[in-house]
C-alpha cells in the first residue's frame, strides 16, 4: 500500500512538472546582427544570452541547433535573417510563440545592444530592451546576461548588477560579536570591531553596520554576545538580508590565545570559510592577528604592511609613553651619527640617504688622504735621491720627479678638502634636517624657549636638552 502511494505521488509530481513547463512561453533566439563588431564575437554574445535566458526559468528556449537546422532547410543563414518577416517565418517553422532578435553596434569606444521580443503569431513587439557599454568588448557578456533577464520581463539578479558595476567579488557580510572565553566582553567586542574594520578595508565585502545588527538582535530579544549559535546567526543574517554571516570566538588558554572564525552562507547554511589562529603574547597583539584573520577568511593575501606589523610585534606602549620622541632627541642623535635622528623620527628614506651620502663622502675623503700619504712617501723618496745627488743630470731628474709628485699632492689635498668639507656640511645639514623634520607632535620640545621674566623684568632664553 505504501509502495502504491509513493508511485502515485511520483506520478502527480511528474505531471505537475510537465504542466508547469507547458505554461512557459516558447522562445527562440536568433543570432544578433553585428554592426562594426566581429562576427565571432557577436555569435559568442548571442550564445551567452541563450545560456542566461535558460537560467531565468521564465521561458522554454529552443536550442540553437534546432534553429540552425530549420534555417538550413530554408536555405538561410542566421546572419542573413535580420528582418522581422524572416524571423517570424523561422519562428513559425520552429513552432515557438516568441522570437528574440537584436543587433550589436559599435560607436567610437561604446557598444550598443538593441534587443526585441515579438510574437510569432501576431508579429507584435512584446518588449524591447537596449543597453550601452563603454569599455572592453568582454563587458558585453554581462550586458547580454542582464538583457536576457530583462527581455523576458524579469529584474536582473543583484549579482549581475554588481558585476556590471565592477564589484563582482563584493559580498554582503555581517559579523556577530566574537564570543570571548577567558577575555572580557569589551575586549572581544573591541577585537570584533577591529575585525570588521579590517574586513571592510579589503573592499571585497559590503559590511552591515554594528548598529543595524544590534537593532535586529534587539528585535529578536538577544543581548549583545548572546547570539552565538549558527541557527541564530543564520536567522539574523536572513533578517539583515546579507549573503554571509561571520561568527567566531576568542579564547585564552594559559598565555596563548585562540581565535576561531567561520563564514557561512545565510541561504544554505554551508560554511564558506573557517579559519583559526593561535597566538601567544600580549593581548594587544591580538589586534594584528585579528586584522590578518579578516583577510584570511576571505582567502585574500593580507597587505604587506600588516604582515610587517605582525613580524615587528606590538609596540611597547608604556615605554613609548615614558620616552616621548622629541625634536631635540632627533637633533642630538643626528649630531652623533648622521641619519640616526631621521631613523628616530621614522623617516627611513632620509636616514638611509644621509647615512649613505655621508659614508660615501667620508670614504672619498679617506681615499684622498690615502692617496696623499702614498704620494708623500713617493715624494720623500725622490727628495732623498735629489738631496743625495751631486751630478747635474741626477739633480735635474730627481728635481723633476719631486715637482711632478708635488702637483699630484696638491690635487689630492684639494680633493681631501672638498670631500671632507662636503662631509662636514652634510653632517650639519643632517642635524638641521633631523630637527626640522623631527617628531611633529611635540612642538613643546623646541630646545630654545624665549620668555619674559616679570620678576627680573627681562627676556630670558632657555635651552632645554631632552632625550
Amino acid at each position: 500500500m505504501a509502495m502504491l502511494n509513493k508511485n502515485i505521488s511520483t506520478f502527480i509530481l511528474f505531471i505537475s512538472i510537465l504542466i508547469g513547463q507547458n505554461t512557459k512561453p516558447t522562445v527562440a533566439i536568433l543570432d544578433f546582427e553585428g554592426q562594426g563588431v566581429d562576427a565571432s564575437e557577436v555569435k559568442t554574445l548571442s550564445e551567452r544570452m541563450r545560456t542566461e535566458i535558460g537560467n531565468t526559468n521564465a521561458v522554454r528556449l529552443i536550442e540553437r541547433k534546432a534553429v540552425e537546422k530549420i534555417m538550413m532547410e530554408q536555405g538561410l543563414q542566421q546572419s542573413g535573417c535580420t528582418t522581422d518577416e524572416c524571423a517570424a517565418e523561422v519562428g513559425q517553422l520552429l513552432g515557438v510563440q516568441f522570437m528574440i532578435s537584436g543587433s550589436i553596434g559599435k560607436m567610437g569606444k561604446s557598444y550598443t545592444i538593441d534587443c526585441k521580443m515579438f510574437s510569432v503569431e501576431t508579429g507584435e513587439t512584446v518588449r524591447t530592451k537596449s543597453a550601452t557599454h563603454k569599455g572592453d568588448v568582454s563587458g558585453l557578456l554581462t550586458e547580454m546576461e542582464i538583457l536576457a533577464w530583462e527581455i523576458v520581463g524579469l529584474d536582473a539578479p543583484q549579482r549581475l548588477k554588481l558585476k556590471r558595476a565592477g564589484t563582482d567579488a563584493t559580498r554582503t557580510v555581517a559579523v556577530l560579536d566574537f564570543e570571548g572565553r577567558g577575555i572580557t566582553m569589551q575586549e572581544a567586542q573591541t577585537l570584533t570591531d577591529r575585525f570588521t574594520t579590517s574586513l571592510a578595508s579589503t573592499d571585497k565585502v559590503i559590511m552591515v553596520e554594528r548598529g543595524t545588527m544590534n537593532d535586529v538582535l534587539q528585535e529578536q530579544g538577544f543581548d549583545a554576545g548572546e547570539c552565538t549559535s549558527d541557527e541564530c546567526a543564520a536567522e539574523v543574517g536572513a533578517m539583515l538580508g546579507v549573503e554571509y554571516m561571520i561568527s567566531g570566538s576568542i579564547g585564552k588558554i594559559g598565555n596563548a590565545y585562540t581565535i576561531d572564525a567561520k563564514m557561512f552562507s545565510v541561504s544554505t547554511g554551508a560554511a564558506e570559510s573557517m579559519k583559526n589562529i593561535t597566538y601567544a603574547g600580549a593581548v594587544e597583539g591580538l589586534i594584528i592577528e585579528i586584522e590578518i584573520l579578516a583577510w584570511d577568511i576571505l582567502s585574500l593575501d593580507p597587505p604587506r604592511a600588516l604582515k610587517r606589523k605582525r613580524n615587528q610585534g606590538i609596540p611597547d606602549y608604556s615605554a613609548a609613553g615614558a620616552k616621548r620622541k622629541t625634536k631635540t632627541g632627533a637633533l642630538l642623535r643626528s649630531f652623533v651619527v648622521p641619519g640616526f635622528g631621521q631613523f628616530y623620527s621614522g623617516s627611513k628614506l632620509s636616514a638611509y640617504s644621509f647615512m649613505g651620502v655621508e659614508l660615501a663622502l667620508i670614504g672619498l675623503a679617506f681615499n684622498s688622504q690615502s692617496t696623499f700619504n702614498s704620494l708623500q712617501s713617493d715624494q720623500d723618496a725622490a727628495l732623498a735621491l735629489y738631496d743625495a745627488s751631486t751630478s747635474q743630470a741626477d739633480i735635474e731628474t730627481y728635481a723633476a720627479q719631486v715637482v711632478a709628485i708635488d702637483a699630484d699632492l696638491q690635487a689630492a689635498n684639494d680633493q681631501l678638502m672638498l670631500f671632507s668639507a662636503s662631509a662636514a656640511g652634510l653632517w650639519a645639514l643632517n642635524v638641521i634636517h633631523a630637527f626640522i623634520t623631527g617628531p611633529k607632535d611635540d612642538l613643546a620640545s623646541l630646545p630654545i624657549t624665549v620668555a619674559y621674566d616679570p620678576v627680573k623684568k627681562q627676556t630670558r632664553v632657555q635651552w632645554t636638552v631632552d632625550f
Partner: protein
Amino acid sequence: MKKIYAIFLIFVFLGCENDVTGLDDILDNPLDPNEVDYEVPAFVFYPAQFDVSLGASFQAEVYAMGAENLRGVNVVVEYDPNKLALENVNNGGLAAGTNPIFFTDTDTPGQVEIVAVYISSDSASVDGNIKIAELVFSTTSIGSSTLDFLQECEMLDPDDNLIEIKGFAQGVVNAQ
C-alpha cells in the same frame, strides 16, 4: 671608544687638510743651479748645512760647481777654530790617478788651503760638478759657525788661465 670617536669628529670637522711644504723649501740641494742664489762656476760646500752634536765629527765636501774646462784649483776655506777642529782633509776626486797632485796646507789656524790638479790620459780638463776635497771637522763648542771660501780661491784651465769664479757658497754648522 670615545677618544676614537672624538678623533674621528675632529678629522671630519677640522683636520681636513694636509700641510703641503712649498717646493722652494724642500728643493735645497746646494748643487742645484735652479734653487741656489749664486751663479756658476762656484765653490760650494755639500751639504750646505750641518746639524751636529757637540764633539761629533762631520764631513764637508768641497765642490767646484758648474765648472767648464777645469784643470786645477786652489781653494782656501776659512772656519772658526774656536768652534771647529779640522781633523782631516781627503782627496775629493779631481786629482785622480796613482800619483795625484793634491796638496793641503793647514798651518794657519782657522784656514785650510787645498791645491788639486786634474791629470788624465783621456782628457785635459773636466766639466760639471767636481768634488775637490772632503774636510773632516769635529765640533768643539756649542753654537753656529760658518765655513767660507776666501777670495784667493782659483780655478784654472789646461792653459793655466784663470776661470772666473762667479759664486762662493757658504756652509753653516750648528753644533748642539
